[in-house]
Every structure is written in structure tokens, then in C-alpha cells.
């Protein structure tokens, strides 16, 4: 595959702009959903007619915000799922569902914090960074923020409190890794960062895959299902990046990569399992409040 270096720079910029637009477009409605969920819970103790009116109003507001998002969220079904959750006259709230969603939120909080920290390192988010790695870290952090907002909205819609703290079981692991990373030189530090991100992404993906059979609320399932594949995609790319870094081929981390130069085994390193495992899934109540 031929690489046009001039076009590559433009493509990366274009990709970055597109995704920054996407993140901006989705953030507002997702944040609104969290507020709506909280309001919806407050409304359930009032008159049933008022509840129905409130539900109808919420659907309209969510439809409007989805339209403003330019279809970015509407197309995924997440808006519809959360609208159904919020607009439901009778909340199918269960303790387990809320715990599962709070734990998912706590993992997202940790992931956001980790990428944020990583981006302060010059070789990840600074002038010496590989542009593809920097764009990936930035975009992925934004996507985790969207996931957090979605999980929090679903939690509040089911009558729970939104979880805004990191998963306590994983915090020491991340802190220890961050300490090592900050002491490491750039080259080995980059590998440590990718390794840590990979571990967190895998935990997130495996946890959400596992959660699919634990959740009872249909819309909470839809929200989770729309997120778990994205975490798995993060894993696939990080697997590939890690292999290239280990191979001393960091310069080949480009968009697109120089496929003709890559070893044959690089073609499958991103997706080692035909069936996504759950052995590293966080327990449902680990991050619950």
C-alpha cells in the first residue's frame, strides 16, 4: 500500500476535527440526559398524569437534542434507549441494574482520568508524540466521557445515584502504574502507557460483555451493548500499537499503517479471541455506591 505522507497529515487532522465535532455534538445531549434522569426520578412521586406529561416532554426534549447532535447519537439508538428509560411511567428499577451501571460508570471515570494523565506526558500528548497515538488518546478519552454520561443517565433514570468516582479496586493498580510511567524514559514509558490503557480497556469491555446477562432492564442493556463493542475496538487498536512498539516499529504507527512493511503476524494481533472473554470482568457491585 502506497503512503502519501502529505495527504496523511491532512487526513489525521481531518479525522481529529471530525471526531472533535462528534464528541462536541454528543456531549451536550448526554449531559442533558443525566439531568433529565435525575428530574425524572423526582417526578415519579407525583401524580400519574403529571408523570405521563413529564415523560412526553422528556421525549420531545431528547428528540430535539438528538437532532442538534446531527444524528451522531440518534443513529446509535442510545438516545432512544435512554429516552425510553426516562420516559417510562413505571421504572423497572432493580438493585442489580443500578449497581451494574454504577460500576460501569466507575470504570469509565478511571479510564478518563488515565487518558487525561497520559496526555500530560510529552510523548503521548505533547510535541514529541506520535500524532496517531495522540489523536487516539484524545478521541478515546472523549468517547469514555460519552460512555460515562450514558451510564450515569441510565443509572439516574433507574432511580440510582450517579457514580462519579473511580472503581476503588482498580485505583491502586492505576496509581502504581502511573508512578512507574512518570519515572520511565519516553520509549519504555509509551509502552507502559499503552499497556495500562489496554488493561483498562479490556476490563471495561469484558465487564460490559459480562453485564449483558446480568442486566434486567432492556434499555440499560441497549446502552451497554452500544458501548462494549467500542471498548473492544479500543483494545484492538491498542493491541496493534503495542505490538508495533514492542517491535521497535513505532514509526509505522500511521494512519493508514504501511501494510506492506508489516510482518504477517501483525494482521491478527489486534483481535486474538473469536469469542470475547469475561475472565477479567469486574464484579457487578465493585463500583456501586
Amino acid at each position, binding site marked *: 500500500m502506497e503512503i502519501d505522507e502529505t495527504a496523511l497529515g491532512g487526513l489525521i487532522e481531518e479525522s481529529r476535527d471530525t471526531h472533535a465535532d*462528534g464528541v462536541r455534538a454528543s456531549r451536550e445531549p448526554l449531559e442533558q440526559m443525566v439531568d433529565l434522569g435525575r428530574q425524572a426520578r423526582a417526578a415519579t412521586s407525583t401524580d400519574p398524569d403529571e408523570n405521563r406529561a413529564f415523560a412526553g416532554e422528556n421525549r420531545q426534549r431528547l428528540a430535539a437534542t438528538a437532532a442538534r447532535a446531527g444524528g451522531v447519537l440518534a443513529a446509535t439508538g442510545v438516545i432512544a434507549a435512554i429516552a425510553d428509560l426516562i420516559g417510562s411511567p413505571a421504572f423497572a428499577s432493580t438493585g442489580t441494574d443500578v449497581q451494574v451501571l454504577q460500576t460501569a460508570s466507575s470504570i469509565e471515570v478511571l479510564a478518563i482520568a488515565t487518558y487525561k494523565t497520559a496526555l500530560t506526558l510529552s510523548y503521548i500528548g505533547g510535541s514529541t508524540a506520535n500524532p496517531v497515538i495522540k489523536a487516539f488518546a484524545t478521541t478515546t478519552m472523549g468517547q469514555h466521557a460519552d460512555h460515562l454520561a450514558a451510564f450515569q443517565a441510565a443509572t439516574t433514570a433507574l432511580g440510582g445515584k450517579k457514580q462519579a468516582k473511580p472503581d476503588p479496586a482498580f485505583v491502586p493498580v492505576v496509581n502504581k502504574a502511573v508512578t512507574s510511567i512518570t519515572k520511565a524514559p519516553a520509549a519504555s514509558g509509551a509502552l507502559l502507557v499503552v499497556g495500562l490503557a489496554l488493561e483498562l480497556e479490556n476490563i471495561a469491555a469484558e465487564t460490559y460483555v459480562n453485564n449483558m446477562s446480568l442486566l434486567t432492564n432492556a434499555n440499560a442493556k441497549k446502552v451497554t451493548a452500544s458501548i462494549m*463493542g467500542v471498548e*473492544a*475496538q479500543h483494545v484492538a487498536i491498542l493491541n496493534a500499537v503495542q505490538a508495533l512498539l514492542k517491535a521497535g516499529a513505532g514509526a509505522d504507527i500511521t494512519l493508514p499503517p504501511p501494510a506492506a512493511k508489516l510482518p504477517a503476524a501483525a494482521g491478527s494481533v489486534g*483481535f*486474538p479471541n473469536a469469542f470475547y472473554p469475561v475472565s477479567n470482568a469486574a464484579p457487578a457491585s465493585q463500583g456501586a455506591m
Partner: protein
Amino acid sequence: MSANEPVSHLSEGELRALTADLDAMHHDLTLPALKSSLSEWSDDIRAQAAAGRRDERAQRSRVDRRRFLAGAGGVAGAALLAACSSSTSTIKNSAATSPASASGSAMADGTGQKLSGDLKVVAMAASLENSGIATYMAGIKAATAGKLGAVPPAVVTFAETAVAQHEDHQKAWNAVLTAAGKQPVTAVDPVIQPTINTAFAKVTTVAGLAELALMVENIAGQTYQNGLSVITSAAGIKTAASIQPVEFQHAAILSFVLGKYPVPAAFTGVSLARPPSDYS
């Protein structure tokens, strides 16, 4: 020093060893869990079928319960998933010049079965896997014949691995069908296949093939995501949930190779999902 600079040199052999380790972990941990889920799902489906038949019988007349149990309990869970670690594909017409023919003889390829509930989703999923396998196999055949120009070794590995994983998925779906006493589905998705065939006829480069594969992977991932809202058995949900992320991983790598941002959205959608009615 930047992230672009070498840390250590990893040879092709070492990289293969790394992937072999991951593969071994997959066989040690993931497959036993999957077999357990499939067995549980088959039990659920048999229980659902038995319950349905009991209701039906109660409405008609009282019949001997022992006779019913003898008819319903003949399929052993041990027959499930004889090999989820892939071997050869049994897909109909997979070696054809075009990905596959959408027409198949009744029953021989699993078409024409009267299915309901989870089994409708399962049959459609199996047919979709067959379409995926057929697409990759036709692509590999075209590449081997030199019709796509130079094909990088990593792309070949990608295609071979993706085929193997789709074969594993197809076997998993079909294991559920056979455990429920139904025929395995070896035919392609009859609705989406003509579109794939038309697109494949225009493919002349590796990039073109990757674009087509990306479409198929996204359809598969979104279909299983949608199926998660339709499947009623918890074990069935476990199975579908373990496959959906893998299809999206294939899509991410294909996007990456094509120079597209590999994780294009914070949420995966269902707008491309094939409905269970594709295979009814």
C-alpha cells in the same frame, strides 16, 4: 526520545509467539465458558419449546406426559460445539468466484425450517456468518489468482484469521440449532448476499475488498447488538455478547488499514442490523 523510537526488536517469530500465547489463553479460558453458555442456552430453548408444546397440548387434549418427554429430550448437550476452534468451513458455495449464491435447496442448507423465538435470531446469525466467510474466501481466492494486485502478508493473515473466527461463530450459532433438533444453517443471508455479490464484482484492489469486508463486519456487529434485545435466554445473551465485540474489532482493524479513524463513534448503532426475518 519519542514513541516512534525503538524499544526493542520483536521478530516475526516472537510476534507469532505472542499471538500464540493469546490464542492458548483463548482456548484455555474462553472456549470452555462459551461451551457452557451454549449448553445452557440449548437447555433454555428446549425448555421453552417444551413449555410451548405443553401449552399447546393442554389446549387440545390431555396426552401422556412420558411420551412428550421421550420426544423432546433426545438431543444431548454434549453434542454441542464439537469444535468451536475452527477447522474447515462447510459453507455452501464459499469457493465460488463471487462470494456466494443466495439460493439454496430447501432444508439441505438449513433454509425453510420453521423456527421461532431465539432460534430465528440464531439461524439468521449463522447465515450472516456464512456471508462473511464467503466474502473473505472469495477475496482470498481473487488475491491468490492475482486479481487484486500485491497483497501484503499482514492483510493475508488478517483475512485468514477473520475467516477462522467467523467459522467459529458460525459453528457456535449452528451448535444451538442442532442441539434444538434443527438443521444447521450453511446458506448465506438471502437478503444481504445479493448486495455483497454486486459489490464484490466491482472489487479490483485489496482496499476495495477491505471496504466490502468492513461493510459486512459492521452489519454483523450491529445485527448481534440488535439481537441482544431480542434473545430471551440469558445464556443466549452471553453468547451473542461474546461475538458482537469481535466483529467490531475486525471492523476497527479494517478501518485502520484503510486509513479511516478506527473507532469512529462513541457508540455502535443498529441501523445496519439485519432483522431475524431475513431467515424466516
